[in-house]
Structures are given as structure tokens and as C-alpha cells.
């Protein structure tokens, strides 16, 4: 039933530098998690997306980047992608659309 989703996530996960991915539904429940991303974090990512959506107009879906000194996490609608980060930097959150 989730073959298409699994194939899509596996294909994206094979991209160089991607540590893991997680896909969530509207309730923050984890549909699929791959690699080094813990499934229990799906709800928190969903909460960040919901809060960011309040900053934008109703029809816009935010794209969010969370940078830490070791990783870069991109949130887009229901997909979260975490990859390695080369530079040393303080954690910051960027929201853009």
C-alpha cells in the first residue's frame, strides 16, 4: 500500500549527503521514516510547519530550513529531509516561501 511512498523516499534518500527523511500526515503521525531520522520526531516537525503556516497567507505552504552545527534539516509540507552540514555555525531556523 505504501510502496510508492517507500520508493520515492528511498530514491531521495540515495541523494549524496542525505542522512534521513521522514514523511508525516496532518496529525503529525509518521507515515515513513528512513535513515537516521527518528520516527518520534514527526510530530515536532509537523508542529513547526503548522506554526510557520500561521506567518503566511492561508494558501501558502512554507519551506523551512533548520541549520545546526552538524546538520541541515529541510521541511517542506509533509516531507522532512536531513543532510550533513560542512560549516560550523550556531543553530538557526529559516522560513521562506
Amino acid at each position, binding site marked *: 500500500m505504501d510502496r510508492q511512498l517507500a520508493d520515492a523516499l528511498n530514491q531521495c534518500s540515495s541523494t549524496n549527503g542525505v542522512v534521513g527523511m521522514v514523511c508525516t500526515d496532518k496529525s*503529525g503521525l509518521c507515515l515513513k521514516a528512513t535513515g537516521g531520522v527518528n520516527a518520534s520526531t514527526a510530530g515536532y516537525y509537523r508542529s513547526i510547519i*503548522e506554526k510557520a503556516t500561521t506567518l503566511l497567507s492561508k494558501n501558502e505552504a512554507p519551506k523551512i530550513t533548520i541549520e545546526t552545527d552538524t546538520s541541515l534539516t529541510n521541511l517542506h509540507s509533509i516531507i522532512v529531509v536531513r543532510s550533513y552540514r560542512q560549516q560550523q555555525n550556531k543553530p538557526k531556523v529559516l522560513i521562506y516561501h
Partner: protein
Amino acid sequence: MSDLNAFCSKLINRFPGTSVIVADRDGFVLAKAIDTNTMEEKAIENSLLSTFSLATDQASKLRAGKNKSIVSYFDDKVVFHLNVNNVIVSILGDSDLNVGVLLGAQDEIVRSLTALSNSIQDVHDI
């Protein structure tokens, strides 16, 4: 009990739009915090709490280990029950509640209430 009420208040601040009830396995309410903007206090019945106690016992017989939690989806609300041995935490929210956040935080809530659960067990053993 005031510490327990404060704990419930912290929980509803952490999960906006929710109401929290801490009860023992017989459905006796130990503490609660109700978000009056989203929930009426009379909507929470004692039978809701004791019914979960039966449901979790039955769920533990499914040969998948001890039941930790049950999420129930209704037309107008979502109810998340967490089993901490002798204590039951019930979190109620609207139908669009972010359940994933509750599932992610359940281990933390269990750790916070383990001491209370153990003290209730001690009382039962007397």
C-alpha cells in the same frame, strides 16, 4: 496534589488546545487541567477514564506486549490515553490535534509520573 495540578497545567501549556486528566485505574481523578476555550468540563466523564482501564487490559492480551497508549478518534475530538501502570493520563483535544507530538512526548510523561504510580502501588499493597 497541587504539584500534580501544576504538572497538568504545564502539559496544556506545552500542548495548546488540550485538556489533561490524571486518574488512577479505577477512574478516580487525581488532578486535571481543562482548556475552557476548547473543552467543557462536563464533557469529561468518570466512565471515560475507567473504560480505558478495561481497554488497556484487553489490549495487553494481544500478545504484543504491555499496552502503552491508545489514541481514539471521534467526530468532534481526539482522546489520547497513556498507561503509566497504576496511573492513567488522558489528553483530550480537537479533531485536528497534533497527535504525533503527544506520541513523541509519551516517554517523558511516563518518566514524570512513574514515582506517583509506584506510590499508588505501595498503597494498594498495604
